């Protein structure tokens, strides 16, 4: 038994954290809100050069051949940076799905480009009305009528949908089956979709942990610096207890997320339940942390001039994506009670 990351995994995480603190500071997130595409190709290329984008791709297609446990700390860093890029869609969901479920020729067509960052992919499963990053995607993997299809970006008819998080770019996407290539159908498609959904949910949970940790760090910094009544407001017990509650929620969501990544990487029994516990706890934790962070910042946190709102809004968005807390809690209830 060793429920911890390896030194190698933590070193990789630290290297990604360094890259993101240089290449994706809050100014980059603010830029993303205001830019037409909201996406910086150089940032994506830098992540790809480090191996992050192709982390889950097989080594023979240019990837690192790593698993969900290796990816988890990196997704948490992406959350911490509020990274405006489709790492969840491309690296956590689409790449492993193509590697496992697509016909060889189709996989060979896409995986090398996805691994080296020259190609971007996104995903749309049934029940997910909005497609993230479809405007920059070269490839959409989509579920329709029980089958999985690959659709190239130029065949998509997109209608933008505006998220509360201005760095998120959502679309409704229409496409014709005649323009699509079949990835899988029948039981194979159902299994691939179920796994893709679980991977997306755990990846979102991992990002939510990073978002929550960053919000706590920002708030600690603020309440230590901010003075009222002649003292730092962080010395007041009411403020301390808000932050202790925030730390408590994250501390007991974090191992749930690790456990779900481990279950994915090792095909553990009760996978659905492990995944749902993780997304449920990560969503609930981020929701509480966001409220506490805003409350402790006071009025300055209620402005768009302060950076906090980038993290609040990304949290709200990810809490509701890939199954919200209540959806996942119901799935856990069904596994226990039915």
């Amino acid at each position: 038994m060793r429920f911890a990351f390896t030194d190698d995994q933590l070193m990789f995480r630290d290297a990604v954290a360094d890259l993101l603190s240089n290449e994706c500071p809050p100014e980059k997130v603010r830029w993303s809100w205001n830019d037409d595409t909201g996406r910086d190709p150089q940032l994506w290329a830098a992540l790809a050069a480090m191996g992050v984008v192709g982390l889950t791709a097989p080594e023979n297609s240019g990837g690192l051949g790593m698993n969900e446990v290796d990816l988890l700390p990196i997704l948490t860093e992406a959350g911490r940076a509020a990274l405006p890029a489709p790492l969840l869609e491309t690296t956590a969901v689409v790449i492993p799905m193509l590697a496992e479920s697509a016909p060889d020729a189709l996989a060979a067509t896409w995986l090398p480009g996805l691994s080296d960052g020259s190609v971007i992919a996104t995903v749309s499963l049934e029940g997910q009305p909005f497609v993230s990053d479809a405007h920059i995607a070269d490839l959409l993997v989509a579920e329709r009528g029980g089958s999985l299809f690959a659709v190239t970006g130029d065949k998509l008819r997109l209608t933008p949908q505006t998220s509360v998080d201005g760095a998120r770019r959502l679309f409704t996407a229409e496409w014709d089956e005649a323009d699509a290539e079949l990835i899988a159908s029948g039981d194979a498609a159902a299994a691939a979709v179920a796994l893709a959904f679980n991977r997306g949910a755990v990846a979102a949970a991992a990002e939510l942990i990073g978002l929550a940790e960053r919000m706590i760090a920002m708030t600690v910094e603020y309440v230590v610096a901010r003075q009222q009544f002649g003292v730092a407001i962080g010395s007041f017990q009411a403020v301390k207890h808000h932050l202790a509650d925030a730390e408590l929620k994250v501390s007991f969501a974090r191992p749930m997320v690790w456990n779900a990544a481990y279950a994915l990487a090792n095909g553990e029994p009760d996978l659905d339940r492990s995944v749902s516990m993780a997304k449920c706890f990560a969503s609930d934790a981020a929701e509480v942390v966001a409220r506490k962070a805003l409350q402790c910042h006071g009025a300055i946190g209620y402005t768009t001039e302060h950076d906090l709102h980038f993290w609040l809004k990304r949290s709200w968005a990810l809490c509701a994506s890939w199954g919200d807390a209540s959806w996942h809690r119901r799935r856990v209830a069904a596994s226990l009670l039915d």
Partner: protein
Amino acid sequence: MDMRFTEAEEAFRAEARAWLEANVPHGLPSGDTHEGFALHVEWEKKLFADRWSVVSWPEEYGGRGASLWEWLIFEEEYYRAGGPQRVTQNGIFLLAPTIFEFGTEEQKAQFLPRMAAAEDLWCQGWSEPDAGSDLAGIKSRAVRDDAAGGWVINGQKTWTTRGAFCNWVFGLFRTDPDAARHSGMTYLMVPLDAPGVTVRGVERLDGDEGFAEVFFDDVFVADDLVLGGVNNGWAVAMATASSERGLTLRSPGRFCAAADRLVELHRRLAATGEHPERVASLREAVAQAWMEAEAYRLATLADVSGLVEGRSQGARSSLTKIYWSELDVNLNETALRLLGPAGELIEGSAGAIDDGAWMKAFEFSLSGPIYAGTNEIQRNVVAERVLGLPRK
């Protein structure tokens, strides 16, 4: 990351499971009553006879030299088999780690084997009428008696769990009244049958006699009952407190077993077909309570992974204490909501479900956020020592 136990650990689990299934007593009365306490001590002696009472201790003191992992496995199996709460816990889980850390070889030999065998039964003496959360405000005094080679103590301790049944108390006494608040205290072990000790039982919220007040009138305590050095009591007490807050007192096994019983209760009530709306409306709440126990189990696995590699929990043990105490309350509250009007019926009432065990467990759980340092104090510790907020 590898979440499998080794073959040796699984063999240990199998051995523990087989023994527990054959030996765990069912239906014991509460160990916090006079009648029940004696029966629980009998059970503790049986555990000791087959060397299951203190598995993680070295063999010379009655243990098996089990690793932290094996200890967790034992706890899981103990509660899975329906084992009762350990009436020896204040000794084996709180005092013993402190003796291992601070005790002399003579103290280890004198106290540990008798503690393991449930020959000596220990209670804690921390709180006083005017010193609860503010533990450093204690006033009970121990005055030096050089001629006799020891200390003479006067004062009062209170909220001493099972104080009415135990024969030893450990706690803090002020030995240098002129020193600063956190200095000048000494950790003493006091026999409750010493001349000058008076114990008065206090009925708890749940009706058991488990609480006590302990009065000391010129009680003599010899030098060899000082643990960890004169005027060093605060440091020694904080070591005990971190055991109490952290994982040694509250292993996840107990909560996971209770969460499984809650799931079983829901399934049982659903199967009767009665009150379908109430039962259906609590599905998410039952799942939430079960998940909280699971989160605590997983967090413990992460903590122990760190501990075996030498990474101490430090002040994060306060997070642990808040979490297990609050999940315990939520779990029992959820059960009572499921029971509806039957929830208020207690032990011995004909219409009670599970003989009122859920109300009993609910009442007991309400002590969790209060003892071992209130959760308000723990939140201060988290804010100041985990997050780094200013004390003042």
